[in-house]
């Protein structure tokens, strides 16, 4: 596989990751969100494997396999089990309406393009052009956490942010050291369990996973 073709496939993967990030922003149904998150993980894993193949940095294969098992299978499965257990069905309400969120999202993509433009000019890596997409994915995940007030959606936003960070590490420096990546993966797994416990407590206390309910916790004025 010639390098230029691999770079093209990698940018297609980057485009798909960006698309799923926007899909996460606009999707209303919670199961749809989980599916999209799993797809994002899949594209991320494939992109990492391609970068690993082209550059000969072999530990990227391990992180690719780690991504595929953790973000495509394990995390969506844990979240799915949680949703089943807590019996969440209703459509998610957003703070800003969806076309509005899309426009903010586009602005964020342009912003991150401007932010990474100097870095891209200095970089000599095959993956330099995908850095802007990675930063945009982080920002879109953050936007998702801000505009949704359902706990599960916010967690998916958080995990999407982590996807973005992982992608940024791959595109800026061909991945973090193996030890760091393993640590992050373990953290994510533990985090998912802790989220589960928190969800459980929030939903038994408030009878809902809407974090707006937390406002009730303040003392009366």
């Amino acid at each position, binding site marked *: 596989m010639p390098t230029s*073709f691999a770079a*093209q*496939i990698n*940018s*297609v993967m*980057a*485009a*798909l990751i*960006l*698309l799923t990030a*926007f899909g996460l922003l*606009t999707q209303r149904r919670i199961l749809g969100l989980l599916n999209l998150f799993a797809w994002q993980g899949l594209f991320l894993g494939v992109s990492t494997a391609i970068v690993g193949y082209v550059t000969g940095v072999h530990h990227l294969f391990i992180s690719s396999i780690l991504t595929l098992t953790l973000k495509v299978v394990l995390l969506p499965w844990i979240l799915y089990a949680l949703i089943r257990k807590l019996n969440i069905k209703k459509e998610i309400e957003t703070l800003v309406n*969806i*076309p509005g969120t*899309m426009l903010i*999202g*586009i602005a964020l*993509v*342009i912003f991150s*393009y401007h932010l990474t433009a100097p870095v891209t000019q200095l970089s000599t890596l095959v993956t330099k*052009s*995908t850095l*802007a*997409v990675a930063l945009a994915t982080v920002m879109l995940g953050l936007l998702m956490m801000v505009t949704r007030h359902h706990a599960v959606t916010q967690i998916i936003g958080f995990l999407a942010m982590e996807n973005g960070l992982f992608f940024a590490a791959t595109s800026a420096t061909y991945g973090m050291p193996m030890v760091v990546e393993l640590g992050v993966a373990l953290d994510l797994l533990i985090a998912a369990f802790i989220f589960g416990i928190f969800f459980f407590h929030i939903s038994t206390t408030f009878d809902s996973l809407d974090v707006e309910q937390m406002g009730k916790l303040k003392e009366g004025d």
Partner: protein
Amino acid sequence: MIAYSFTIEAVQVLILLFAAPAFAGWVKTVKCRMQGRTYAGVFQPYRDIARLFAKEVILAENASWIFRVTPYIIFGVTVMIGGIIPLISTDLPFASTADVIALVMLFAIIRFFTALAGMDIGTAFGGMGSSREMTIASLAEPAMLMAIFTVSLASRSTSLTEMVQVIGQGEFILRPSLAFALLAFIMVHLTETGRVPVDNPATHLELTMIHEAMILEYSGRHLALIEWASMMKLFIFSTLGIAVFCPWGIAPSGDFVAILVAFVLLAAKLAVLGVILVLIETGLAKMRLFRLTEYLGSAFLLATLGMLSYFILE
């Protein structure tokens, strides 16, 4: 040589005029087959048009000249658009008169006059249809323009024949920007030609229809012209999509055999496209009118993402 290219231009317009009803009939036939209904065949639209031409025109008492002139304007502008899009050859003398942006504006003229005619008679349904059509158009047009700008960026020209030459004969590159633009274009295509998630072409339920509501008062040869023009619009949007996103096979210039090949390829591409269109229409339910802002918003988003990913990734 000039006579030769003018002949090709004329052949193209003839193809547009006489293949458009067949394409509409093909889409209808496949759709009926897929939904397990009986079908009237590919040539039914020709019979419909002939029947409408034979009928007399009944005008409402308060119809103004706008109402009478509109069918001819719609038909004329549609044929004119057909002269600009490269169907089988890029050797079109007429194509240099208008680029893609002018093309979008020509579609806007059609829409403008249809909406005016819808309101001219003063029935409630006409006005409602016009208002809906303009709402949708104001959302679809930016998405369409954005999608086209993305392709223009990739081919460094807004002239359709240039775009076809650059993309069709250049080196093949995987371009995420074009994929985004294609998705956006398909969404706009479904909107502009009044297909299922937006409007139902077969509906006669007044409260849900958009395009049909505006032309309710037309009859006879006026209706025939409008129906024929809307079949041509479906054909034009489909061939525009082919010319911009899948131009392989469109003959460059002067080669007679290449033009024959291009004609066969065009028929094959249209047949496949018709099936895809039917799959989309059968798989989706008609959307609630107030959800359309989101649908067209995502078309705009996709087109913009296409443009951004051209700058970021290519």
